[in-house]
């Protein structure tokens, strides 16, 4: 049953009145002018405006809205920050867009245990600033500072600490369509804080990670935070091939050197060197970025590996010596700060902000989005497979004519898997190339999964195909849970876990 029918039957105005009555007029928007701004994002996802945009300010508001939605079986699409590039918060069937922006309080920073309680609308910028005041930091993603930690952390994040601390979430407060709620971590015990994710009971926190709003609405979370140590460093190493870079990061990660490390393809770090005329006008890229990404110009390292470390000053000095030794073992070389500065001053500045100041790079780093529509392809795979994936994926994307072809990659969970994000910027007016890249990405996902044992990163591919169809047993299990928690199938129907909705 599509919402358009449900709403015309039920009288859209009556539901609007009920929503207003329940949580207040200022939190319920139904003017076209507001709805239109929630109908699209930068992706190619088809436009669909919601019927209502709801801006709850607390858990009670969320409960009220979910109960009304449940009563009328109205689809609910949940948004914490809305900063995503693949249409995850574009409603497919109109209904309610639950925008949690206004729930933006940092409720507690527990410096003793090392966790913070945050609401879903808290942005990275506000969170990292609040933590810095207390001498703390959190896992920071490469998304803009206006995105939300919770939105990011709930979607299998690739952040500044995912080498060692893959899962930043400890405890969640979740509200369900019937208005009930649960605390998933140790705070389920009446007097306990949020210091444990699971035990003695099952890990239900994990149930809501990567469930993309299909099972409940998270209204509060406890997330891991870390003290800012006495000293911190960004060490740089240059390699002329990806395989050596992977071997190097595995070695240093397994020897407990970095807090995090990232392998950057030269086209990516050079893309930060976009030049904008002082009086405005067309920005220009370094011309070499149009060349084959597999063949960097002379003097430009194919990969730069950034190794982020923090601790006591003495251990930093020792670690740097160790890194110099290990770099040579894999045929690389240490890249001096001066040389890196010459190669890409903007990237150096971004690394400094991310890993020495522990917050997202400023807006200057986003200039590159001016190059075109950002189109990304992301997988995780074991280290031996990721090397083969890099080789075929870069060539395949380059063959479409899209330029520049960029990537970065990092070890997750001490190198048990490698994250690989390949992307390009396509002129949004070039529909042919956009479609071609979509097509190629779809083929590449198939190849990566079939031939190289990879796992895709989001729940659906660029053409909207959901991966659950490839995991039938898991899909059935997921449906059972979904039916128990959201029997009317109203939460994030985008994910298409099951089609039917009770009449």
């Amino acid at each position, binding site marked *: 049953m599509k919402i358009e029918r449900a709403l015309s039957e039920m009288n859209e105005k009556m539901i609007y009145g009920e929503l207003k009555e329940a949580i207040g007029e*200022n939190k319920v*928007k139904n*003017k*076209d*002018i*507001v709805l*239109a*701004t*929630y*109908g*699209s*994002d*930068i992706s190619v996802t088809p*436009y669909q*405006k919601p019927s209502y*945009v709801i*801006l709850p300010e607390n858990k009670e508001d969320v409960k009220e809205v979910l109960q009304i939605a449940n009563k009328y079986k109205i689809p609910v699409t949940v948004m914490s*920050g*809305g*900063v995503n*590039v693949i249409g995850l918060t574009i409603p497919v069937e109109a209904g309610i867009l639950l*925008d949690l*922006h*206004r729930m933006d309080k940092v409720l507690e920073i527990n410096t003793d245990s090392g966790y913070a309680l945050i609401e879903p609308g808290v*942005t990275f*910028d*506000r969170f*990292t*600033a609040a933590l*810095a*005041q207390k001498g703390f930091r959190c896992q920071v993603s490469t998304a*803009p*500072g*206006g*995105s939300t930690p919770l939105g990011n952390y709930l979607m299998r994040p690739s952040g500044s600490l995912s080498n060692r601390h893959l899962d930043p979430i400890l405890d969640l407060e979740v509200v369900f369509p019937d208005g009930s709620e649960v605390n998933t971590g140790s705070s389920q015990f009446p007097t306990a804080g949020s210091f444990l994710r699971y035990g003695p009971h099952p890990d239900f926190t994990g149930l809501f990670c990567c469930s993309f709003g299909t099972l409940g609405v998270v209204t509060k979370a406890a997330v891991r935070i870390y003290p800012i140590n006495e000293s911190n460093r960004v060490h740089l190493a240059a390699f002329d091939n990806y395989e050596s870079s992977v071997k190097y990061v595995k070695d240093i990660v397994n020897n407990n050197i970095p807090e995090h490390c990232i392998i950057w393809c030269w086209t990516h770090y050079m893309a930060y060197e*976009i030049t*904008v005329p002082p*009086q*405005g*006008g*067309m*920005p220009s890229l370094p011309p070499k970025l149009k060349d084959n990404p597999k063949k960097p110009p002379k003097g430009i390292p194919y990969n730069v590996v950034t190794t982020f470390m923090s601790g006591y000053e003495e251990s930093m000095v020792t670690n740097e010596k160790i890194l110099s030794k290990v770099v040579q073992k894999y045929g690389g070389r240490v890249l001096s700060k001066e040389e890196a500065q010459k190669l890409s001053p903007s990237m150096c500045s971004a690394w400094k902000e991310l890993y020495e100041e522990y*917050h*997202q790079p*400023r*807006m*200057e*780093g*986003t*200039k590159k*989005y*001016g190059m075109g*529509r950002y189109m990304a392809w992301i997988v995780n795979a074991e280290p031996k497979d990721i090397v083969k994936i890099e080789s075929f994926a870069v060539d395949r994307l380059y063959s479409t004519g899209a330029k520049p072809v960029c990537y970065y990659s990092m070890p997750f969970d001490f190198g048990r898997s490698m994250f690989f994000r390949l992307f390009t910027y396509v*002129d*949004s*007016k070039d529909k042919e190339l956009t479609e071609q890249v979509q097509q190629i990405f779809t083929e590449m996902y198939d190849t990566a999964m079939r031939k190289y044992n990879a796992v895709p990163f989001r729940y659906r591919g660029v053409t909207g195909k959901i991966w659950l169809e490839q995991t039938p047993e898991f899909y059935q299990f997921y449906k059972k849970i979904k039916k128990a928690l959201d029997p009317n199938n109203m939460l994030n129907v985008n994910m298409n876990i099951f089609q039917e909705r009770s009449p």
Partner: protein
Amino acid sequence: MKLSTKLEDVYTAVSKCLRCSMCTYSEWPDNYTICPMYLYDKCFAYSGGGLMYIAKSLIDKQLNFDSKVSDLLYTCSGCLACDDICEIIPNSEPYVRPFDIIRLMRYEAVKRGLVSDGRMRDIQEQIQKYEEIISSKKENTLGIPKKIYNNNADKILFVEWSFLTSQQKIYNSVLRVLEKIGEPIAGISDGGLNLPDLYDLGYWEQMEDFLATKFDIKGLKGKEIIFINPHSQEFFVHRFPEIISGYENIKSWHISEFILDALQKGKLRMKKRSKQIKVSYHDPCYLGRGLGIYDPPREILSLIDGVDLVEMERNRRNSFCCGARARDYYFQDFSKKTTLERLNEFKKTGADLMLTACPYCQVIFQKMMPDTKNIVKDLTEFIDETTE
């Protein structure tokens, strides 16, 4: 932005907005909310980014260009916060800033007859009056003191005709300060036709006619223009080169820069003050974010004996708009609430005096504090009082 730009031309740019909402707040770590609309109603639609999505929806015909859209466009106070912060829209074809796109949508609103007849009449009257003023123009109608007036001087004072009556106090202070400095000055006026207004409010056709037939570019070549109103200065500095082909940028001074230069060169001397005074300086949007002029007013204040400058929480790039250009078309009491937000911030400083350097700011602050008019002054009035 070129006046020939069409709404469809900005599609690539508006399609790139990431919805990061960073256009609504100042830089890390302060993260102050500085977009007045977003502060009023924290909903993405009411932000620079939201307006980019509205432009996109209009182009895609997913939203009707109706009076509601027009009302929201004119509600925006034009504080330039989104222009100052966003790096995505200006780096996307056609390389214009978010507020340019808002101006462009206003132009579309004017073309579609979505602005009130009263407003349109005001503009027509301005143009008519301009014709009258220009045709009856005599030498030095601007009242520049004889001691410094020289029609051939390199430095020209630019005067908004309306200020001769509505902002007489500020204008007289400017003239007295210039007389104390003693440099030869010529004067030009906008003749009552407020070009920045026409541009910001979308009356581009009217402006185009004026520029094509009346504006004397050649007469300004090699001259230095002193501005009292940062809106006019920003227009001359940033807009003319975009909209008039072959326009060579002139050297411009904001009056605060000119005064500072005179103080540093010893052309203007401060009186000895016996009493300490706590002063807070409000950064006008067009002077600060528009022209990047933050230091000269503060440097002047640092040179005045007995002045203790206390900053408001949101200052310089993070300054909050006075609300003078905001309208209440879409939100009730929006303009008033914006102004009061800033005044409350000023009150928290405990300062005796608020200084600003844009006549629009002074007018709106005084209007909202009618019983305490002496608490808000223009910088030039204060300089006039404190110099010999």
